[in-house]
């Protein structure tokens, strides 16, 4: 989880990713941010987040995103 938080904080240092659960709903992350995050996750966790997994539910909070990474790690 700490690795993911680091990736997110690098992109938006001003956001409290540990508590925020409206990253998409409040437009804190835009499409460019999401692509950057996915590339970093691919590097760091060696999992591929495909386009169909890019949903507000999966990206609204660091926690939800981490759950997605774990799910993909289990699958792969």
């Amino acid at each position, binding site marked *: 989880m700490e690795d993911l938080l680091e990736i997110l904080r690098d992109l938006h240092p001003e956001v409290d990713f540990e508590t925020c659960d409206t990253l998409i709903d409040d*437009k804190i992350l*835009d*499409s*460019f941010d*999401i*692509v*950057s995050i*996915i*590339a*970093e996750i*691919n*590097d760091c966790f060696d999992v*591929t*987040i*495909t*386009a*169909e997994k*890019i949903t507000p539910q999966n990206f609204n909070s660091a926690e939800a995103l981490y759950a997605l990474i774990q799910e993909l790690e289990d699958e792969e």
Partner: protein
Amino acid sequence: MLFTSYAFLGFMAILFLLYYLIPGRFQWELLLAASYLFYFIAGPSWLLYILATTVTTYYAARRIEKTGQQQKAYIKVHREQLSKEEKKAYKDKMKTRQWRWLLACLFLNLGILAVVKYTNFAISNVNGLLRAVGSARQFGFWDIALPMGISFYTFQALGYLIDVYRGTVEAEKNLFKLALFVSFFPQLIQGPISRFGDLAQSLYAEHVFDAEKFCYGLERILWGYFKKLVIADRILTGVNAIIRDTGTYRGAYVFVGMMFYALELYADFTGGIDITIGIAQALGIGVKENFRRPYFSKSVKEYWRRWHITMGTWFTDYIFYPISVCKPMLKLSKLARARLGENIGKRIPIYLSSFAVWLATGIWHGASWNFVVWGLGNWVVLMASQELEPLYARLHGRFDVQGRGWYKLFQVLRTILVMSCLRTFDCYRDVPLTFRMFGTLFTEHNWHILWDGSLMGIGLSAVDYGVLLAGLVLLVAVSLLQRSGSVRDRIAAKPYPVRFLLWYGLFLAVLLAGAYGIGYDASQFIYNQF
């Protein structure tokens, strides 16, 4: 049958009456019949195109879903016998099968769109190339009419198909219900491009007459007619005069044309969408909003999140993300990071995918180079803003201007100006001519035309300017009010005589100040032939 024709008003009146008189379970069937009648009147032969899209999408979606079900059932039965690798191999095999159905249907429908929309564009380019190399050979153009709304309904149908492939929605089992989703007539002409998951349930549900909703719908329709007939069609005369006489109207006139066109396009497109959403609302159906006061945007990026929203999200979900996060793109990004450095490497997926999106957006808007250049112009501006963000952040930190009223106004005006400059490609519809005319802004020093009465010579009288100014003030006032909640909710809270006066006033405004007159024919909506 134009939205602005008497025939359409008659058509709507009969539909509303029948819709609430028949049993609720037949309402969606009535809407299907009305949609096909609407399309048949527009062009009988065009029915074949929409039927082909509906049937192929229906069949491919059903096959994709069936393959998925087959896979789940097989895994469930053989869970114990299969190793992890065998399960994965079987899943991959079935996914490939689904992918093939998806691809075949995409190719077929985008192929139809490409043939009817882009064949003559391709021929004109080939002819141009032949002339350039000195060949006398020229190919004749195809006599092919562009079916009404084909870009909209094709994208709507393909969005549904991709959602079924992704497992976001279930495939519709009833062909006729899917036919209604693809052809729902209020949005057939110019969108919005609805998602199956957002629209279907409300489209097929039974709706009892709700006076309040019906009234809200009619208010929205009336507001749409106001924008279209009072503002867009009136200012159109001035825009056309400036665009068509490029010898006379240069320099400051180009600026006036840009600003007038910004107003015309906004009033025309959002007016049409108001009519669409209003009709749907009066029928009890929820259609997604397509605009959120785009001219109040403080950046081009924000503007594109608020203008033609359903098209933007369509391109983001079905083109931008699949390209930017696909495995080859991630590999390319990794390679570029290793070779060219972190900064360049991580930008590559964004730059390339956005390029594809804006190229597609340009081509989607029309089969000519001006739209391609317009699309790529937007891409350049967006990428430049992205790169300038750190600089803006530094400036904002140093000069404490963020959040100040005058600075917000500056940002809003800057966005309107940038978007209007890009739209000159849409106005002149000829790339070299657009550049030449844009250049005259700096070479012809005739800014005095803004106050010396010359603007009376572009086909607009003092009365026209008065009506336009009043319309613009009302438009801005309503937009400002919308920021703090629904204007229609506020109207609904007023005593009945006040409400009646407001409706009657707006109705009279459309009737008296709409751009009619002897021999006048309300123009088509700009997005009609997309």
